[in-house]
C-alpha cells in the first residue's frame, strides 16, 4: 500500500501541490488524471524523491519512502522524457542497470529482450519513440519493482506499440502484484486497465475512487417533463452537469436520491445512457470550475 500524506510543494510564490493525500492499494493500477498544469508530474517527482516536498510524507508499506535509499530500490519510474545516456546502446544500458541494482533479474531481462526484439546495438538517441519507451520497460521490469510509476507511458506511440505496452503493464500486475501509478490523458485507455483513480486540479485532489464504484454511482440519464425540469432536481447538489435541448435534459447525477426525485416527477421520457470516465471527468471538472 502506498500512502501519500498531506504533500505540499511550492516553487517561489507558486503553490503547485496543496495538501495532497491519497491511498493506493497494493497490486492496483491507479490512474492519476487532471488537466495540464494540475501538478501530476510534480506529485510523481515528489513520490520519487526527485524533489522534496515542503510538507508531508510518502509511505510504502508503512515505511517512509523519501529518506530510505533501500526502499527506493523497490520503486521504478518511467518518465515521459527518457533520461538514459543518449550515446549508450541497449546492451550498455542493461549493463549499467545490472551493475546498479541488486534486484536485477537476468532471466526476466532475457525473456523480455526476446519478446521486444529491439536493435540492441543502436545508440539510444537513434531509437524511435516507441523503441525508447520499450527500452525503458525492458530495463525497469527486471528490477521487479513493488511500485511502478509511469508518466504518460503511451503518449505519441502507434497503436501496436501502445497495445503492447498496456498488455505488459497488465501482465506485470497479474504475475507480480506490482502496484502501478499511471498519469495519462488518454482516459479511454486508462478505463480498461485501472481499478482506481484520482483527479488532480490546481494542485488538489478533487476526486479519488474505485472505477467500479464510480460507474455504479455516477449515472447519465435523458429525461423530459411535461412542465420542464423541476427546480429541486435542477438545483440538487448531486447534479454534476446538465444539457438541454428543447424539453429534453441530459443529466449526469452522482446521487441516487435524484433518481427517486425524477421518478416522482413523472417524466414523459426517461432513459439511462452510457457514460465514459472521460465524461465523468469533464462533469466533475466542470462542476469544480463553477465553484471558483
Amino acid at each position, binding site marked *: 500500500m502506498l500512502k501519500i500524506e498531506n504533500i505540499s510543494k511550492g516553487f517561489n510564490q507558486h503553490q503547485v501541490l496543496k495538501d495532497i493525500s491519497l491511498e493506493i492499494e497494493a497490486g492496483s493500477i491507479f490512474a492519476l488524471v487532471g488537466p495540464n498544469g494540475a501538478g501530476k508530474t510534480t506529485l510523481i517527482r515528489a513520490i520519487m524523491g526527485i524533489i522534496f516536498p515542503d510538507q508531508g510524507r510518502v509511505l510504502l508499506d508503512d515505511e517512509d519512502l523519501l529518506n530510505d535509499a533501500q526502499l527506493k530500490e523497490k520503486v521504478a519510474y518511467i518518465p515521459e522524457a527518457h533520461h538514459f545516456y543518449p550515446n549508450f546502446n541497449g546492451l550498455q544500458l542493461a549493463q549499467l542497470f545490472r551493475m546498479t541494482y541488486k534486484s536485477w533479474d537476468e532471466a526476466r531481462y532475457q525473456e523480455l529482450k526476446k519478446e521486444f526484439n529491439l536493435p540492441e546495438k543502436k545508440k539510444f538517441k537513434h531509437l524511435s519513440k516507441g523503441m525508447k519507451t520499450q527500452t525503458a520497460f525492458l530495463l525497469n521490469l527486471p528490477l521487479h519493482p513493488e511500485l511502478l510509476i509511469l508518466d504518460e507511458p503511451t503518449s505519441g506511440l502507434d497503436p501496436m506499440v501502445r*497495445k503492447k505496452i498496456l498488455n505488459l503493464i*497488465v*501482465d506485470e500486475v*497479474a*504475475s507480480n502484484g506490482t502496484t502501478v501509478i499511471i498519469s495519462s490523458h488518454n482516459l479511454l485507455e486508462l*478505463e*480498461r486497465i485501472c481499478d482506481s483513480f484520482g483527479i488532480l486540479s490546481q494542485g488538489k485532489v478533487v476526486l479519488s475512487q474505485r472505477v467500479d464504484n464510480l*460507474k455504479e454511482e455516477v449515472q447519465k440519464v435523458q429525461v423530459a417533463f411535461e412542465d420542464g425540469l423541476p427546480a429541486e432536481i435542477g438545483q440538487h447538489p448531486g447534479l454534476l452537469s446538465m444539457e438541454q435541448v428543447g424539453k429534453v435534459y441530459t443529466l449526469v447525477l452522482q446521487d441516487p436520491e435524484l433518481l427517486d426525485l425524477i421518478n416522482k416527477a413523472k417524466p414523459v421520457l426517461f432513459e439511462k*445512457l*452510457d457514460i465514459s470516465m472521460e465524461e465523468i471527468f469533464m462533469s466533475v471538472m466542470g462542476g469544480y470550475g463553477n465553484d471558483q
Partner: protein
Amino acid sequence: MFIINPASSTPIYRQIIEQVKEKVLLGALQPGDKLPSVRELATRITINPNTIQKAYQELERQKIIVTVRGRGTFVAEGYEGKKDAEQMEALREYLRKGIIDALYLGLSKQDIKKLVHQLIEELEARSD
C-alpha cells in the same frame, strides 16, 4: 470471447459476469470447459487483472465456475439455478427497472408478457 465496452455504464467486472453467464446458458461454455486464467484473460482483452479476479470470484460465489488449485478455472458441473435471496432481490430490482422502461415506452401489460415469453423462447432455441 469477451467484448468489453469500457465506456458502458455497466462496470467491466459485471460485463464479464454477464457474458460468462450468457455463454453458459447458451451452451457455448459447457460444464468442465476451462476458462482462461486471470493473467491470460487480462492480457488477451487488456483489462485490469483485479477486475477479472473480481468477476471470477463473483462467478465462483454464484457456483457458475469452480477453481481447482493448480489446475485452473472451469465451468461448474451440473449448474442449476439456486435461488439465493440476495440475488433474487437484485433480479427483482433489475426486472422492475426494465418494466418501468417498458411502461414508459407505452407497452401494455400484455405486450410485456409477450416480450418476456418471446425472449425465453429465443434463448431456448439458441441453446438447442
